[in-house]
């Protein structure tokens, strides 16, 4: 398959557009000098990813991503940013000065992974473009074959919930305690 074959397919145009957007957003997430912007760029990257999922006919996961990540996690992040009073304006100190080594490492990660996948899959095509996986299948799978991991994950979530509360809860000082009792 040549590049011209590839570009001839319209769906790949869509892919290219979304992919570039995702890449750009991702890049900004790790380089932005503004904390809030970084979080918002992550929203962008996730939204783009959801789009890619749709391309690959994984509708359900795409909506989960939008709902859970963009709807909940990012909000959580923004709360976190507010509470920790991270400087919301431009801040040079958000990143370390020594970027060479991390850049080199991440480049190496990219190279190795890319090499590995190209080496392994070459020009293999996706199989199921166009047929959306039904939510029913996923649901049956989740509550059938994967019911135990499913339960475990729900347990993990519960644990995270309790843990998060326990950790984040501020123990009242004796004075505060007294005040509370008196009220």
């Amino acid at each position, binding site marked *: 398959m040549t590049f011209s074959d590839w570009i001839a*397919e319209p769906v790949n145009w869509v892919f290219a557009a979304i992919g570039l957007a995702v890449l750009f957003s991702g890049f900004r997430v790790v380089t932005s000098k503004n904390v809030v912007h970084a979080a918002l760029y992550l929203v962008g990257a996730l939204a783009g990813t959801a789009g890619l999922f749709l391309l690959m006919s994984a509708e359900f996961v795409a909506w989960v991503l939008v709902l859970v990540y963009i709807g909940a996690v990012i909000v959580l992040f923004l709360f976190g940013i507010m509470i*920790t009073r991270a400087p919301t304006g431009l801040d040079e100190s958000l990143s370390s000065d020594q970027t060479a080594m991390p850049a080199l490492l991440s480049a190496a990660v*990219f190279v190795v992974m890319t090499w590995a996948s190209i080496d392994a899959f070459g020009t293999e095509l996706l199989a199921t473009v166009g047929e959306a996986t039904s939510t029913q299948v996923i649901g049956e799978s989740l509550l059938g074959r994967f019911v135990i991991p499913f339960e475990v994950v729900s347990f993990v979530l519960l644990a995270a919930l309790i843990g998060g509360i326990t950790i984040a809860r501020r123990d009242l000082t004796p004075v505060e305690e007294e005040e509370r009792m008196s009220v």
Partner: protein
Amino acid sequence: MLLNQFLVLGAALFAFGVYGLLVRRNVVLILLSVELMLNAVNINLIAFESYLVSAQAVGQVFAIFVITVAAAEVGIGLAIVLMIFRNRKSANVDDLSLMRW
């Protein structure tokens, strides 16, 4: 669509995540980078699913699991950040040298 176009994209996102993980100083931002990496993994999972196609949509189920665990991780992570911040008045990892021998 090629399988590899998604894999390479995922690899790139992952690499960005790694970069952010290593270079960021603010703990919240480090968590953001981790999310990015997890997201890259999800792309791979979905891509493989639509490449191999399993009857029970295993890849997608796994992506859901990843998302769920990531949510849990963010919850706990932010709680920890909160506590550290409360104790140290800082969310800067350079100030956290507890793990030094």
